[in-house]
């Protein structure tokens, strides 16, 4: 069932490419159906795994030889952690299509590339053969580039090129590490579960870990390799920035956890503190930079760097609670960042054609676009980490983990939360509630918020509130997965 998430996406992308005519309507309808079908497969697959195999253990989805000479297999499998991220991808994909309903310019190609990206992302989250994982990882880079270059806005060539270059450097590092691991292990397999059983020599682990970890973490926005993120997010069209922040950054964090940390626990131990420092710097730095941005979308872009810092910090705490928080934060940030980008890029920018906060200020948007204002208020509350929303339980767990491992970083991360509250409040007030700052607010007439936008916003809001109130829905997947045999190396590395 879960494998169909990948097939449906790629198949629909192929069909879209061959669809005759330039009419956007059939293209977007097909894309929506494909995204919904993918989400349905993800949900059913998750329920299935939960009922039959228990959510913890790795459950095979597909397993067939591929390049037998090298021991490479087409091996897909899911455990609790990948299921959570597959669900996230499904939800983000549907929302992204809904917020791209107004794409008229070569809609066919747009949605084809969009679905190819989604397919690649599903593939990464479901692969256990590391070579296969790498292939999907690369597949996801290409559509990203074109989505930004063709449909993007502000400095799109620059943003797209920067994103592509960073991604390629990262994946080159990952590839070097993987091949080295393959050779050193000498077991002629790329299978994650098999490689995890190998004890690599410590000296090897020390360099392999940092190469693979950083290679992945570039995509997760690890400071100081984060600079692609804000420019890329800003240049991308709405749906692409939703996916970039919502899902693609999670690819990096997922790879860092799944590959680097599991394969090289000794290396992890060596580098744990260093990376935790970088994560905390990312949290605080991202938030401080967001505080002074003039461009609405840059604020959200830097806030993503800050929130992803929490994910990396959670991973580095090496406590069960911190890791569980990190995985939940991946999900939560995916939903919330998607929502905020949708408001900024689709609801506001597509109508006002500006993202300059000083220009938006006199527009009195809470009167002109009340739905967008309410959505952004709730999204902002979720992003601040207020209780009742998914981000709260996630950051709560990360902070508890940080308190146990490095109390000082716990305090610094709490300061980061405060700065986060400050910039979110600032942008909220400037963009939507600044009517008293101008003499006579003129109400710019804008098209009403359309039905697809409303549906997309409701989908994302309902998700973050549901998980905020019943985090057990996802924790039931995450907690057993952290205790599964696959994660044993982490316990050996000193996880508590």
């Amino acid at each position, binding site marked *: 069932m879960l494998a169909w998430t990948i097939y449906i996406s790629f198949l629909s992308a192929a069909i879209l490419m061959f669809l005759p005519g330039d009419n956007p309507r059939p293209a977007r309808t097909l894309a929506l159906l494909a995204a919904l079908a993918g989400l349905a497969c993800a949900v059913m697959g998750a329920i299935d795994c939960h009922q039959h195999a228990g959510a913890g253990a790795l459950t095979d989805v597909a397993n067939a030889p591929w390049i037998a000479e090298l021991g490479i297999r087409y091996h897909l499998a899911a455990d609790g952690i990948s299921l959570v991220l597959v669900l996230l991808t499904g939800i983000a994909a549907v929302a992204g299509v809904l917020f791209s309903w107004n794409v008229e310019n070569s809609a066919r190609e747009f949605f084809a590339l969009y679905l190819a990206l989604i397919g690649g992302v599903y593939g990464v989250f479901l692969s256990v053969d590391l070579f296969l994982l790498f292939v999907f990882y690369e597949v996801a880079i290409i559509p990203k580039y074109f989505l930004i270059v063709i449909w993007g806005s502000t400095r799109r060539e620059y943003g797209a090129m920067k994103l592509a270059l960073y991604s390629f450097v990262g994946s080159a590092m990952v590839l070097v590490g993987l091949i080295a691991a393959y050779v050193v292990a000498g077991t002629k397999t790329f299978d994650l579960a098999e490689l995890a059983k190998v004890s690599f020599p410590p000296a090897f682990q020390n360099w392999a870990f940092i190469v693979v970890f950083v290679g992945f973490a570039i995509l997760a926005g690890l400071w100081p390799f984060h600079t692609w993120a804000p420019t890329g997010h800003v240049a991308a069209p709405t749906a692409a920035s939703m996916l970039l922040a919502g899902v693609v950054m999670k690819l990096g964090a997922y790879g860092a956890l799944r590959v680097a940390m599991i394969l090289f626990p000794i290396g992890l131990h060596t580098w744990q503190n260093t990376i935790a420092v970088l994560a905390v710097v990312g949290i605080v730095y991202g938030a401080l930079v967001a505080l002074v941005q003039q461009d609405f979308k840059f604020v959200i872009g830097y806030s993503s760097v800050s929130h992803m810092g929490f994910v990396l910090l959670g991973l580095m705490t090496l406590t069960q609670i911190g890791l569980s928080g990190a995985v939940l934060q991946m999900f939560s940030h995916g939903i919330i960042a998607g929502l905020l980008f949708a408001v900024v890029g689709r609801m506001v920018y597509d109508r006002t054609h500006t993202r300059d906060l000083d220009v938006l200020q006199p527009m009195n948007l809470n009167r002109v676009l009340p739905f967008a204002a309410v959505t952004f208020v709730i999204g902002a509350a979720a992003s601040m980490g*207020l*209780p009742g929303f998914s981000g709260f339980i996630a950051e*709560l767990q990360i902070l508890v983990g940080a*308190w146990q491992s490095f*109390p000082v970083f716990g305090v610094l991360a709490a300061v980061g939360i405060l700065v986060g509250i400050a910039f979110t409040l600032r942008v909220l007030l400037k963009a939507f509630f600044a009517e008293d*700052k101008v003499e006579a607010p003129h109400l710019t007439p804008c098209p009403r918020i359309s039905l697809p936008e409303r549906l997309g916003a409701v989908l994302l809001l309902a998700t973050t509130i549901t998980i905020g109130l019943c985090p057990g829905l996802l924790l039931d997947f995450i907690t057993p997965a952290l205790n599964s045999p696959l994660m044993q190396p982490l316990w050996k590395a000193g996880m508590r």
Partner: protein
Amino acid sequence: MILSILTFLPLIAGVLVALLGPDRQKLGRNLAFAASLLALALAIGLWAAFDNARGGMQFVERVPWVPSLGIEYHLGVDGLGLLMVLLSALIVPFALLASWKIENNPKLYFSLALFLESGLFGTFTAQNFIHWFLFWELSLIPAFFLIRIWGGPKRAYAASQFFIYTMVGSVAMLAAFLALYATTDASARSFDFAQLESTAHAGGLFAGHETLATAVFLGVLLGLAVKVPLLPFHTWLPAAYSEAPTGTAMLLTGAMSKMGVYGFLRILWPIFPEQMQAWRTPLLVLAAATIVLPAAAAFAQKDLKRMVAYSSVNHLGYCLLGIFAAARLTDGSALFPNEQAAALNGVILQMFNHGLTASALFYFVGLIEQRGGARGLNDFGGLRQAAPVFCGLMGIALFASLGLPGLNGFPGEFLIFKGALSLASRASLLSIPGLLLTSIFLLTILQRVFSGPLPGKWSGWPDLTLGERLTVLPVMALMLVLGLFPQLLTGLANPAVLQMLKSF
């Protein structure tokens, strides 16, 4: 179930009201008011069903929420919680009536006020820190927007300052509790108030880490101190209260400020008794400062609303004085437990009574502003001739506020001072000028606004209309009744106080 119903009734009603079409403003307003009355009826029903003889937590609901983190959906009320629920349920309809004439999007205003009510009920009934914190924060968002959208000319500044101050406090408190959780033995880890209290008394918290214990205590203290507020964390308050629209100011002072004091009694006192005792002296000094300095500041104001705002800080200072004075494990004297109980009973009485009096005062100041278009202390004069009933009722509220015996302000302050004078004599003596200053500035209001020659332009000053009289009637009646029969409140408060003291 009844506590859950009570908590979520305003929330659901608020969502429904918010979802009504923009042309259904009046319907939304009426629905919201009806919901607040229903909540009041439920709260009164709760009071009737509360078994006072049994004491302890009642109507308990307990459902696992996030078991891996020790988070439960845990509700219950004792006498203290019940009084606060009753107070909130009473203030909200009063404040809604005071906001009846809001013109700018009344539907949204009323639905936000209902969200706030839900936050209040949740805070006063939750027995698990995370559950409590959820509602603590939930009340902040509507309050922010109520000030931000419907406030006076400086609303942007006032709302942001209010939000940021409170948030800094909240984050400090949250971080402190997480540290507490993370550093406790895995077997004793909990966010449950009662559980934390018994772990604390068994010496299971902090395990001898003095610095950690102090840091956690100060974090929690900061969160609560900003909310009450305790000097020097009060600077957000005058702007927020004076810029807020009348109804919102009533909610802020009548109910929300009690959240902080409640936190002192429910969290700080039971879980951190030793730290409270260690920090008692500086805290007492701050409490005395919270009584005297705002009273002096009120004296210097020329704006009626700011005067009432400062007087509100001053009155909450008495609550803090009582709490800190009683925060002592023992002093060996036989009378000690009695004095402790007196002070704490006084605190709870003062919380309830200040809620009534201060919201009534803000209501009257709002009426003055609405009629005169100004609220300067010196803009009026002689209004008694034009509006005798107005003057009489506002006079009662002013006298209640200065603690005249026979009115509701007196018993609380009397009990607080009765306890505190022997428990913390110096701090109490230091606070006494506060009582004097309060009397002077409250009487000044009465004199400048209502006495003297009536300026010609106010000769047509309308007296209270029938609607206004009915609005204020229940609260005024309670002010008289509770002044004469304070045992109505102490009957509920005393078992809760004894429970608190027993755990020492």
